[in-house]
């Protein structure tokens, strides 16, 4: 166990935590757009971190470069896909849930 292995493991676990939190976010957030936030971003960072962490563990420079290239592609493709999904939903007329808290309080004061 050398320092690079430990560093790789730490980055790997950090990435997995982000993926886990993103998944929890998909369940907890209230509407489509907020869920897209959780799915599109925590997952991107998590996945990139996992790939970088793996890059420390694999043998051979070339394999590390491959993993880093995949990480770069994901970092570019994932937000693009997120944007495409959100845009499609918006153009199909799905209304975002806005201003949850103030609406709740308004209802409270009216009733």
């Amino acid at each position, binding site marked *: 166990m050398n320092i690079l292995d430990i560093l790789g493991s730490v980055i790997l676990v950090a990435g997995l935590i*982000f993926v886990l*939190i*993103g998944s*929890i*976010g998909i369940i*907890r*957030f209230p*509407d489509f*757009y*907020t869920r*897209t*936030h*959780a799915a*599109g*971003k*925590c997952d*991107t*960072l998590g996945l990139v971190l996992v790939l970088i962490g793996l890059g420390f563990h694999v043998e051979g420079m*070339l394999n590390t*470069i*491959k993993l880093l*290239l995949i990480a770069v592609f994901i*970092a*570019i493709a994932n*937000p*693009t896909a*997120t*944007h495409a999904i*959100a*845009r499609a939903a*918006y*153009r199909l*007329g*799905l*209304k*975002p*849930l*806005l*201003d*949850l*808290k*103030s609406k709740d309080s308004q209802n409270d004061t009216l009733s």
Partner: protein
Amino acid sequence: MSDRKQNIHLPGLIILAVILFGLWLVFSAHFDVFHISAGVVAVIIVILLNYRLLRLNLYPEIDELNPPIRILRILPYTFWLIKEIFIANLQVAYLIIHPKMPIKPSMVQFTTKLPSTVAKVILGNSITLTPGTLTIDIDSDVFLVHSLTPSSAGSLESGEMQKRVLKLYGDNISQSVSDFQHLDNIDSEKPHG
């Protein structure tokens, strides 16, 4: 349809082929005759499949000038973006885990004059990557963004990120953000299809 097509220029095609072939070499890591010839065939197939797509000018209303990006400035921007992504991701993670989930979603809209489609892609993707904000639509120069918390919308209002994207292209930045507004009522029927 014919006015949306633009002439494909050969240098671009050759650069694309070289990039694709370089990627093939890195990913295959075998340098014998079989793998290299298979790579050449694969590159030709990919270019043929994408040929019709490359001919489409997706933004016919814009005369693509495509001013060159300042190569040396990409690196500082990337580091700044990575830092922002980390800070903001921790914020969203906090929002998700927090028992009361203190989110306050809103839609904001602003105008940023960017020199090319590539610049819009950079800004749009950067907005999406920094959590709390999500690019929903880009209509010529108008960006429509969904934000989780008021503070993440506020960071867009200050124009920090827009300024940095503009700096990738040049130094004379007059105004990075204009017509910033919160949208209270979204009329979903309106957007053009």
